[in-house]
């Protein structure tokens, strides 16, 4: 790492999910806000430990579901009753019971798209690159490593104090992550 390059943050490794969760709670209590933890699987209770607000994904899905519902009804009412009404075996043009299956399928389809794309929208993915990948250890976050990163953008950021703080809460390794490729 060249001395001139900016630091993205400090990455600290912890031994296991319990230590990571305690560390996240300590970091939150110390007042840091720009930090994240990395783990191979979701850890139960971590959202509270980090002080995250509940995910808003449900609302995105609900809006998509409503679009599917209204769109499905509109499509069938318009095509069967307005655009080109055809008399089919004595059935009414507005045969609502018969419109249920397609409307239902469209609600599910639109909600699923809303979930899928909403997930990526909220996670700001896909991303071609992220400074965290400059770390020499982060690839273990998808295997058996448990990491916590405090970003330099945090209002409380002070490189040495942050390193001392992370060491004091039991980090096993500490690594500085550069903003640009080293």
């Amino acid at each position, binding site marked *: 790492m060249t001395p001139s390059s900016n630091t993205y943050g400090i990455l600290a490794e912890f031994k296991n999910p319990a230590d990571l969760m305690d560390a996240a709670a300590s970091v939150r209590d110390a007042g840091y806000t720009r930090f994240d933890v990395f783990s191979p699987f979701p850890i139960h209770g971590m959202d509270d430990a980090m002080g995250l607000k509940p995910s808003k994904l449900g609302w995105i899905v609900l809006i998509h579901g409503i679009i599917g519902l209204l769109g499905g009804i509109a499509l069938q009412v318009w095509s069967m009753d307005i655009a080109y009404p055809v008399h089919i075996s004595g059935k009414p043009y507005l045969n609502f019971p018969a419109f249920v299956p397609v409307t239902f399928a469209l609600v599910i389809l639109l909600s699923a798209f809303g979930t899928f794309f909403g997930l990526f929208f909220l996670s700001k993915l896909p991303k071609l690159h992220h400074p965290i990948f400059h770390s020499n250890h982060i690839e273990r976050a*998808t295997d058996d490593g448990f990491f916590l990163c405090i970003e330099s953008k945090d209002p409380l950021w002070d490189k040495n104090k942050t390193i001392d703080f992370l060491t004091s809460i039991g980090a096993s390794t500490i690594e500085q992550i550069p903003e640009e490729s080293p």
Partner: protein
Amino acid sequence: MSQSSDTQKDLLVKGNHDFASVTRLISDIPQQKTPAWWYIAFGISNILLAMLLGMVILLIWNGIGVWGLNQPVGWGWDITNFVWWVGIGHAGTLISAILFLFRQGWRTAINRFAEAMTIFAVMCAGLFPAIHVGRIWAIYWIFPLPNSMQLWPNFNSPLLWDVFAVATYFTVSTLFWYVGLIPDLATMRDKVKGFYSKIAYGVFALGWTGSNRHWQHYEKAYMILAGLATPLVLSVHTIVSFDFAVSIIPGWHTTIFPPYFVAGAVFSGFAMVLTLMIITRKLYHLEDIMTIDHIEKMNIIILVTGNMVGFAYAMEFFIAWYGGVEYEKFAFINRAFGPYAWAYWIMITCNVVAPQFFWVKKFRRHIGLTFFLSIVINIGMWFERFVITVTSLAQDFLPSSWGYFSPTYVDVLTYVGTFGLFFTFFLLFLRFLPMVAISEVKGVMPQADPAYYRNNQKH
């Protein structure tokens, strides 16, 4: 002591694995040299796939007369195969979505695998309605597209509901599968050595880092998708059964069809998962993850759904008699003792008698017997759809118009060819993708729970 042996017994992952060894166990498979059996199996699948392609071209070139269809039997093996393959697919969604909502941790060992099976089975299924229309160049008429005739599809028709249901099912299953794959693709990206394979896995991992700010939305998304897939899977086979039940043909026009079809779908799908799983766990040495306990649990589901199907067969007969409709009574007596009695009794033997072995714990945990019965059940379920489709059409209201259906070689080879389609994709999946949901398996290990460490510190 007794407590620790109890926990060992209840563990979902056997063999004292830690996180790293679970990662290795699964992520090493796509990195190893491709085994010789894979090339042989893939070659055979490709030949069958080419044969399927040839048969489809033959059909499109000549028209659906190359099948054994006639008057009055206008639906034969095409619809039988369609319903059979869709039904197989349903087990994957049941495992991935319904068992997820019921917090069944054991599903993590098999869900990836079963979801892949779902997607490929639905591909095989979707082929048949597409090609059975005869004039496939006009297939876009099934979609509500503005066109020069200004006509729209008939939304009163169950056949159109089917288009929407199966298309939605395929799309949602694929999205669900891919969302589940992302963390594991990131694991593969971080594990593989080759430059191009790193890029390939990396692109599809979409930059996943394992960040908890992502996991938070991810878990929510997974739960919502499971919640969406659950009613969807029930509705899909319900709508498939409407293809029959909404008509007025004796033997089809019954309200028991939707639940009975869904139970049958789960029944045959679990059998198919077992067939594939028993081979795969052996070939890839995954006995620690896909354990004998999994096989036993799945056999219990097979026993339950098998008896539901058996109950439905009995209930159909009862209602035919109790309803007092002459044609309905005839349709069922004719099914069991008419010209298709051979097919009916194969169905009863395979679907009702065969699963009764699983009342006995020893048989539920016997791998050889399970493998054999899983194939028997799938044969039985194919015959169920054949019996339903063909017997009712062959002998309906007017004896003067009765007929008999015999398949041609095109029918047979098209069906066999769909196995080529299925296994081509399935083998590619086994070769290149993590076949077990690595992150989910880790999540159900006791070491994943922070409480595990706190309790151990106290002792």
